[in-house]
Each structure stands twice: as structure tokens, then as C-alpha cells.
């Protein structure tokens, strides 16, 4: 068992591009769920429309890269409006059901053979990321022993954490304003807000669009950093993982989603590395009837599911949160 390897895997993932994707998605969910109380279970859908917005525009329609970027910003806004109009006047579970269903349907459409010409089928789309790669100012990889990034990852990490920082700044600016006050009030009791003359529907829609745009940003970043858009990257599990990350860091806190994503990936990658080592090789430490290397890769999903349950039950305010400020409670 090489603990150094475990630590390196954990740290590299915790600070690497994957954690950034989750941090961005979770910032969006924080606006939805943490501040406004909207249950968006389809963040993966927002991610996928942004990613496909870029890829389809640049590759399939052969338009300029920057137009693709614009499309990947517009697509989540459009999706938020389409999802919001029928559901935001209804009880919270309707939005949850419609978003989860839409995200799944989008993924099926993007991966379907019938739309292979438009979306590339299950193989997805590649060949749009050259402009992004060419902007990379770094010439070599970064190796600090316990932290290792390739040249490409180093560029992505720079871009990504900058985006996360800007996102947090925006959320902080917005949430200290009267606008943020209205959102937090809606989370608690929308009838009270309505009785004071605020258009609750419009605020919910604004929150849905803004959070969806962060979801879109996560999808865009994912598409850029791995230079391919594949439908299986946008499964519903991604949304649930982002929720787990958000709850670890604490909902309704500006840095909650960021801290949560870092911890989430540290734990997941660490665990993955440990179980990988336990099941690796011709004569693994764990007998194969108990766990094969394929099964080892599933341990993290099992742990995440269990973790999400336990967090919600015992520490809904997050690891560092204060119970009195907990954002989520009974209706």
C-alpha cells in the first residue's frame, strides 16, 4: 500500500479540474437550493446544453469558437426559462421532477442514434477546443511531488479557479444585496414575500436562470478541459454528487460549494486510490470474490450515497456550518 500515491491522487483531484467542475455546478445549486430553496435535480441538464452548445456550434455548424462560447451561455438561460415557466408556480417537488426528467431526456437525445448527425451519438463530439488549448501560456507540467498537473491541466486549473473565484465574488455581492434578501425570504416563506408586494415568480426565475448559468459554466469548463463532449458525462449522478459537495461545504454559504467540492474530491479520489491498490494486480490484497477492480470503482458511489444521507440527517448545515443558520428545514 503506497500512502504517498493515495495522497497524491487525492490532492491532485481535490485541486484539479474535476473539483472545479463540481465547484461551479455546486455554486449554481447553492443559488437554487441554498439561497432560494428551489430543488433543481437537473443540473446535469444545464451542464450538457452548455457543453453541446459549444460543440455543436463550432464543430457541427462550423461557426467560430467564440460564437460557440456565446451559445453555451445562451443555452442554459433558455433551458431555465423552459423549465421554470410551468413549474415555478407549483410546489417544490414539481420542479424537482421536471428538472431530473429533462436532464435525463436531454442526455438520451444527445446520445441517440437518430440525432447522430446533430449531436454525435454516444461517441460525442470532439475537435472544438483548439482555440482554448492554443491560449495555454504554460510550457511544461507542474510536479510538486504530492501534487502533479500536466501542462493542459495546469492551464485548465488556472482558468477554472479564476472562474470559481469570480463566481464566488458575484454570489457574495448578490447575496448581501436586497435582491439576495428577497431570495432568502422566498426560501423561508414565499407567501410572506408575496404579501409584501414582491413578484415571487420573477425572483425564482432569476435565481433559476443564474444558478443554471453556473451549471452551464461547469459544463462549458468540462467540455473545454477534456476537449470532448460525451453524453455519459452528463448523467443524473453528477447532479447528486454536486448536491453532496454542496452539503459537505454547507448550503447558503458563499464558499460552501467550493470547500465542499474540494473535500468531496479529496475523499472520493483518496478512497478510489486506496481501493484501486487493494484490488490491483494478479494477487490483490482483497480477494476477487469480495471485490474486483471494477467493483472497486463503485465503492465511491456507494460511499457518496451513504454520505449524502448521513449528511442530510445529521449535519444538514454542512461540516463547518452553524445549526441555527441551517438553510433547509421542514416546510
Amino acid at each position: 500500500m503506497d500512502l504517498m500515491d493515495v495522497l497524491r491522487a487525492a490532492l491532485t483531484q481535490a485541486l484539479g479540474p474535476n473539483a472545479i467542475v463540481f465547484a461551479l455546478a455546486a455554486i449554481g445549486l447553492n443559488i437554487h437550493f441554498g439561497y432560494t430553496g428551489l430543488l433543481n435535480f437537473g443540473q446535469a441538464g444545464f451542464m450538457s446544453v452548455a457543453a453541446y452548445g459549444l460543440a455543436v456550434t463550432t464543430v457541427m455548424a462550423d461557426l467560430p469558437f467564440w460564437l460557440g462560447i456565446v451559445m453555451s451561455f445562451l443555452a442554459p438561460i433558455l433551458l431555465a426559462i423552459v423549465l421554470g415557466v410551468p413549474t415555478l408556480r407549483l410546489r417544490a417537488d414539481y420542479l424537482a421532477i421536471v428538472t431530473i426528467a429533462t436532464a435525463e431526456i436531454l442526455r438520451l437525445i444527445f446520445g441517440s442514434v437518430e440525432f447522430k448527425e446533430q449531436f454525435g451519438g454516444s461517441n460525442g463530439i470532439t475537435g472544438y477546443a483548439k482555440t482554448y488549448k492554443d491560449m495555454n501560456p504554460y510550457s511544461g507540467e507542474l510536479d510538486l511531488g504530492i501534487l502533479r498537473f500536466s501542462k493542459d491541466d495546469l492551464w485548465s486549473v488556472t482558468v477554472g479557479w479564476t472562474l470559481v473565484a469570480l463566481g464566488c465574488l458575484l454570489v457574495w455581492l448578490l447575496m448581501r444585496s436586497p435582491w439576495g434578501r428577497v431570495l432568502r425570504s422566498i426560501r423561508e416563506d414565499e407567501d410572506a414575500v408575496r404579501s409584501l408586494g414582491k413578484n415571487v415568480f420573477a425572483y425564482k426565475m432569476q435565481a433559476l436562470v443564474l444558478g443554471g448559468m453556473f451549471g452551464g459554466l461547469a459544463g462549458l469548463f468540462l467540455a473545454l478541459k477534456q476537449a470532448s463532449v460525451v453524453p455519459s458525462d452528463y448523467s443524473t449522478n453528477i447532479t447528486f454528487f454536486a448536491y453532496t459537495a454542496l452539503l459537505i461545504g454547507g448550503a447558503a454559504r458563499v464558499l460552501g460549494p467550493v470547500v465542499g467540492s474540494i473535500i468531496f474530491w479529496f475523499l472520493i479520489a483518496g478512497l478510489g486510490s486506496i481501493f484501486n491498490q487493494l484490488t490491483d494486480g494478479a494477487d490483490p490484497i482483497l480477494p476477487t470474490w469480495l471485490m474486483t477492480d471494477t467493483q472497486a470503482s463503485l465503492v465511491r458511489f456507494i460511499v457518496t450515497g451513504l454520505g449524502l444521507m448521513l449528511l442530510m440527517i445529521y449535519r444538514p448545515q454542512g461540516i463547518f456550518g452553524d445549526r441555527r443558520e441551517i438553510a433547509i428545514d421542514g416546510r
Partner: protein
Amino acid sequence: MDGEQMTDATLPKLGALVDVPNEPGAKKPDPIVVGDDISRQFGGLRAVDVGHIEIQRGVITALIGPNGAGKTTLFNLLTGFDQPDSGSWTFNGQPIHKVPAFKVARRGMVRTFQLTKVLSKLSVMENMRLGATGQMGERWWMAPFRFLWEGQEREITERADELLVRFKLDAKKEDFAGSLSGGQRKLLEMARALMVDPELIMLDEPMAGVNPALKQSLLGHVKSLRDEGRTVLFVEHDMDMVRDISDWVIVMAQGRIVAEGTPAAVMADQRVIDAYLGAHHDTDLSDLDEAAIAEQVMTEIQEGE
């Protein structure tokens, strides 16, 4: 608070009600709200069935009746929190029966709730600030730039401070609203409604759950609302309060208006006494429909045994 006097300005308005006949659906000289044929059904139950209703401007009107009489449902309908099966009504001459709740509030018709809706995870001051209308900082494109709304926020805070002093909540302004007592919540809700600067303020059971020590001061506050020129409509069970402060009383039973008149006239009305004595259940059921169905099923079960 005992020394409250009616100011001269309000006297003529009260005087105007002297000529109004003490009968259901009576026409008023200067109504702020006029409603016709308002009905709302829950399942098989007709919760509200009001032929004609007028609320006089500038006075305190009490809406009384036994539990399940449809008072809160009528409140919900008038303020746009529930949709009627039929009916129309106007506020200041403008039809508002199809206007959404938030626009009703913006037009100057603001309500409070039977179960107080203070936002317990926000501070008392934040609750108050939320009440102010026309805030630039509540628009998303201005919100990130503090310098755009800082000035207005300061004005709002000053106004809130004054109201909090008036309602004796100034010592609590930085506390979470969730830490307030039941009576203080009622006060906060009333003060917050005043931040909207309403013409008509509708209070749903302002005395429920308030301890006796606070009741007198609450009464004073309600009277002071009228004295500063606002119209007050309130639902109440506390007959002392009704007798003490209301200028006009509307009695509802089984969804209909059964009597109307001055407090003295109504209290002496046999129909009103019957309506109250006829009320057989004590539990307060805001959602009539579900209660009625559940009750019916319960009876079925018991019969089946």
C-alpha cells in the same frame, strides 16, 4: 395606551356610517372595497358565498364569525392568495379580482396571516427592510453594485427604525425573528406590513396567541393605524377587542354574511348569538376541504367497526 383619543379628522367618517342600515351587504358612503357574488367551493363545501360586501374607507371594520365561517378564505380571495369560483371585487374603484397577490399588495392592500409569517432566519431589521417597495437593490442588475442602492437602503433603515421604536421592537432589531415571542411576531408582522405603506391593512386574528399584557398595546397600535388615515379590516374572535376598537362589524357564518352593523347593534342581534352558539367545533381548521373529507372518512371507519 388608554388615553387614545379619536382625532377630529376621523370623526366625520365615523359619522358617515351612522346612516348606514344595519343589514347584510349594506351600501356605504365611501367604500374602499366593493365585492359582488364571491364564491369559493372546497370539494362539496361552499366555504365562501358572499352576495355583496363593502368596506368603508378610513374606519376599522371587524370580520367575525364562528370557525369555518369562511373569514380567512374571504381574506385569501380578496388579497389574491386564492382564486374564487366566481365573483368580482374592486379596490379604490379598480377591479382586482384577477390581479396576482403581489400586485394587490403593491396597490396598497396588504394583509397579515393567522399563523404569523415572520422570516425566522432573517433578523428583525431584515424582515422590516424586506417590506419596503420599489427597492433598486432588489433588481438583479443593480444588486451587485452597492453604491446604487446604498442611499435608498439607508432611508429604508431609518423608516424601519422609527416603526420598530413605535412597536417597541427596537431593542430586538439585530435578533433573528425566530427568537421573538408570539405577540412580538404579530407586532413585527404588522410593522413590516406598514413598510409597504398600505391604504388598507388586513389583519388576520391579530390577537391570537398574544399574551394579555401585550393585548392592550396591540389594540392601541390598531387604532393608531386608523388615526393616521389607513383603513383596517380584521378577523377576530376576541369579542372585547371587537367591541373596543371596531367602528363596524360584519358577521359571517357558513360562508355568508349574516349580519352587519355597529358593534353595539351586532352584539345584540339574536342571529349573531345563534351563530356563535351554533358553532360546535373548537379546533381551528384553515383548510376546510381536507378536514371535511378526513372527518367523513373517520365517521365511515367508526361506523364500519
